[in-house]
């Protein structure tokens, strides 16, 4: 079959003719984009086989940085699921590297020995991290930042080690450093030049960025040259040419990338810095095409997705039988994906004497903008702190537009003059149809508007699915939303995304939690400031949530804000309908003593408490206590050894038990003792919603363990752990999580499970709806399949507990905490 097949190529294939075979080497962003474009142009034309060295389906490599920073999960960045390959009849051979090409026989052979024949071959092998030529680079613990395996290695290192050194202060290095810092490592960035990201930023912007990142805890050594990586059996330090040595448990090499052309080279294809291709993306062999970072085109190589996607389009056209599409090279722009840092750079900003420089600085807002003009045309732009006009400048740069008419106000951005600068929708409405909205995928406004109108799209997700706009790095999502809003007008219902926390903010619970972690926010005002709250000090709905998130994120460091606590948690008693309070002392595992009962009886008499009731949680509730009597009631209960039962808390409530093997003729284990141990470990903890446990001594389950947040059921050979039950408004029986043998394991699983719930559930989300949302499988992978993670979660739980196991009653009864709560300001008359 010939290369230049004539004909429509579309649906016109005769079904009896054998289909042409296309083999794709490289299951990455450029390769699969080409396949997608090809499927759109000529569905069914090829019998397609894709080889990928990584064991995963195609994912959004760009998003590895957010995965490292904990802002996204791997599942969220998968671009093509295995089901997609199946639906499109594509054979995916993942986890198998192609080793050789036999151009004469037209076959490729992989490491596994598998040989597949092709009529057309597409090489999309990406690139490799550049390995600096110094001793020690091959030590364990030295890695690049290129694929999921690297991210996993970094996350693992952040659990076992403390010091990370990132060599290279460019885009990739900084994203790695930021991510490692968020994961708790002390990070030093070693950079050869005097300012970081010098290829994209001028020294002013580079310095501002460095300050910002230093503020987050990163250390920079600029003008620093690596001499050696030292360590015995494993990396231990990095030595600089000037003799300094920086301790390192992990070294990330991020000094650049090199096109991965080994396969092409060994097959005798013409190569320079990459595999050489012509404007049709065809290599020196007419049946072999190449796209992506592995190619060299007109002497250029690329390391960003926008040009690769343009290449993909051309290659797909060629494979579909077209003869016209041609690639002419790309101008690129850059954004840094570090949450909270706004940075944009494009073009050339090394001003020479024929260039004009327009600079704008607003130190208090942290804004810096610089536009470099030559012959009244934008030649380069650097924006820091305020990047909303990045796309506009970039468009003018690519179009070579004469900016004379707007020259005077150019630096203030597109919205300037109309008094509409603050309204992004107006700015988007003013854009021409040819204006580019999504830089990565080269989608212009007109294409989006057309898709919205013709296909009746109503959400960003739909626009993304149909046009690819905002499908890669995601920074243009707000622009796409504006295009939707402008196009649909009143018909645009907004995004059906997770709801904002409350009317004080547009942010969702998850966004806020991620920001607290990623930006290191440590107080409620800080969160409100950085996340642009719309009210001065929030409301009764967001403040308790923020207080909890901060408490959970920074144990020991964040000081609980009692003004943001619901009254019950503020005064450690439950308010009743008549304004009095109820008092519930803890009864560990539901066990009490004559002394405790006597003390309770005495308190009831002494303070004339109107009602005493046994609760559904196996303890005793004293109803109708006057607020001003609370400290004295507590003091008396404390004196008999009793502490708060936290019957009011979004935290551990009770651990119900049955009598178990101590007395019961069916009991298999000491369920009462187990329950007491669990309650001793977990009391005082704060969780997103209340948390209840129970332990039953046999499967008859008299403690009703299977409707608890965590229930333990003893069996002959050990303990079954069940999770996600609820006996409240919607009854939900637990899911079985795991069976273990020892009490220690029960404690470890419980701590890990509570910590996972605490770290990831939304405020006021009980474990039952949480598990329904994230899935039991997810919980399993985090704490059953991954013992290291379980141990780490358990350790974090215990660490937090060291700050929260003080009896709040004692602190108030005798410690004088919040004294003002329990007395009147004045008595008048």
């Amino acid at each position, binding site marked *: 079959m010939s290369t230049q097949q004539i004909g429509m190529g579309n649906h016109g294939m005769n079904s009896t003719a054998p289909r042409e075979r296309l083999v794709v080497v490289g299951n990455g962003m450029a390769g699969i984009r080409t396949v997608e474009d090809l499927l759109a142009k000529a569905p069914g034309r090829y019998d397609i086989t894709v080889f990928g060295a990584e064991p995963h389906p195609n994912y959004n490599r760009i998003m590895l940085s957010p995965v490292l920073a904990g802002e996204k999960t791997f599942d969220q960045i998968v671009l093509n699921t295995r089901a997609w390959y199946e639906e499109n009849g594509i054979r995916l051979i993942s986890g198998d590297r192609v080793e050789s090409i036999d151009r004469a026989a037209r076959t490729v052979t992989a490491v596994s020995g598998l040989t597949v024949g092709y009529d057309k071959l597409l090489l999309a092998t990406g690139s490799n991290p550049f390995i600096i030529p110094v001793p020690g680079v091959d030590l364990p613990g030295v890695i690049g930042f290129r694929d999921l395996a690297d991210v996993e290695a970094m996350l693992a290192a952040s659990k076992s080690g403390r010091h990370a050194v990132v060599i290279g202060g460019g885009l990739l290095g900084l994203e790695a450093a930021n991510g490692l810092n968020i994961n708790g490592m002390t990070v030093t960035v070693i950079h050869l030049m005097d300012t970081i990201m010098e290829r994209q930023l001028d020294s002013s912007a580079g310095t501002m960025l460095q300050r910002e990142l230093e503020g987050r805890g990163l250390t920079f050594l600029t003008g620093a040259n690596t001499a050696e990586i030292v360590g015995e059996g494993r990396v231990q330090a990095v030595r600089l040419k000037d003799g300094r040595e920086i301790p390192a448990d992990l070294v990330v090499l991020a000094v650049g990338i090199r096109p991965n052309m080994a396969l092409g080279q060994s097959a005798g294809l013409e190569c320079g810095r990459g595999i050489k291709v012509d404007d049709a993306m065809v290599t020196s062999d007419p049946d072999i095409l190449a796209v992506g970072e592995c190619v060299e085109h007109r002497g250029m190589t690329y390391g960003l997705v926008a040009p690769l996607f343009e290449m993909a389009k051309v290659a797909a056209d060629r494979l579909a039988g077209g003869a016209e599409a041609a690639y002419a090279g790309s101008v690129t722009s850059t954004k840094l994906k570090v949450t909270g840092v706004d940075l944009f750079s494009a073009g050339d900003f090394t001003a020479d004497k024929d260039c004009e420089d327009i600079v704008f600085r607003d130190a208090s807002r942290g804004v810096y903008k610089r536009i470099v003009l030559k012959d009244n045309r934008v030649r380069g732009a650097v924006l820091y702190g305020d990047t909303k006009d990045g796309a506009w400048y970039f468009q003018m740069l690519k179009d070579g537009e004469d900016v004379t008419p707007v020259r005077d106000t150019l630096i203030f951005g597109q919205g300037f003059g109309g008094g509409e600068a603050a309204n992004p929708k107006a700015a988007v409405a003013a854009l021409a149809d040819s204006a580019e909205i999504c830089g990565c995928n080269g989608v212009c406004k007109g294409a989006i508007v057309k898709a919205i109108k013709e296909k009746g799209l109503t959400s960003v997700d739909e626009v993304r699915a149909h046009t690819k706009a905002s499908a890669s790095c995601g920074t243009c999502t707000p622009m796409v939303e504006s295009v939707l809003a402008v196009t649909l007008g009143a018909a645009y219902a907004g995004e059906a995304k997770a709801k904002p926390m409350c009317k004080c903010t547009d942010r969702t619970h998850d966004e806020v939690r991620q920001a607290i972690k990623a930006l290191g926010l440590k107080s409620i005002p800080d969160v409100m400031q950085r996340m642009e709250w719309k*009210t*001065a000090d929030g*409301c009764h709905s967001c403040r308790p949530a923020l207080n909890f998130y901060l408490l959970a994120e920074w144990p020991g460091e964040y000081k609980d804000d009692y003004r943001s606590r*619901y*009254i019950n948690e503020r005064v450690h008693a439950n308010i009743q309908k008549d304004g009095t309070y109820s008092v519930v002392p803890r009864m560990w595992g539901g066990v009490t003593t004559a002394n405790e009962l006597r003390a309770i009886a005495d308190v009831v008499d002494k303070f004339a408490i109107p009602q005493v009731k046994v609760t559904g949680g196996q303890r005793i509730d004293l109803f109708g206590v006057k607020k001003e009597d609370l400290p004295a009631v507590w003091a008396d209960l404390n004196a008999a050894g009793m502490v708060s039962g936290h019957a009011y808390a979004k935290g551990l409530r009770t651990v119900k038990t049955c009598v178990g093997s101590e007395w019961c003729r069916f009991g298999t284990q000491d369920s009462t003792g187990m329950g007491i141990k669990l309650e001793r470990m977990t009391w005082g903890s704060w969780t997103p919603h209340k948390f209840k446990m129970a332990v039953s001594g046999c499967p008859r389950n008299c403690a009703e363990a299977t409707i608890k947040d965590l229930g333990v059921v003893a069996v002959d050979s050990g303990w079954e752990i069940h999770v996600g039950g609820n006996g409240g408004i919607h009854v939900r029986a637990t899911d079985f999580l795991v069976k273990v043998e020892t009490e220690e394991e029960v404690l470890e699983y419980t701590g890990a499970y509570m910590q996972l719930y605490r770290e990831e559930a939304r405020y006021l989300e009980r474990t039952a709806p949480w598990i329904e949302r994230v899935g039991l499988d997810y919980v399993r992978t985090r704490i059953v399949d991954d013992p290291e993670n379980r141990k780490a979660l358990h350790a974090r739980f215990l660490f937090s507990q060291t700050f929260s196991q003080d009896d709040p009653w004692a602190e108030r009864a005798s410690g004088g905490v919040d004294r003002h709560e329990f007395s009147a*300001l004045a008595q*008048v008359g």
Partner: protein
Amino acid sequence: MDQSMKWTVVGQVEDIPRQGSRVVRTESGNIAVFRTAADEVFALEDRCPHLGGPLSQGIVHGKRVTCPLHNWVIELSSGEAAAPDEGCTGSIPVRVENGTVSLGLAGFRPGLGRGGCSHG
């Protein structure tokens, strides 16, 4: 405001926690005295217009308080419930001088809207 108003000193601004409240007991019932994040001071009858919940126990945000019993939101300056709820609780005139808080208690009767209450 009525210049002849009789003012009763009840304490110092400092005695009231910021974004919090203290209770002043009177023969005609409790008054909740609030201090906002911006240090403004307001006083309301300590009874929610809904079912009488003690507003002094609520969370203070902006110039509002949320009742601890069923989350009605009450304007501190007027005692009015925020939409969609409807109702009003009595508000008491407050004077702050050199950090000393005084209330204008003349005519304060529980359930009798005063001050900004438009339909009490």
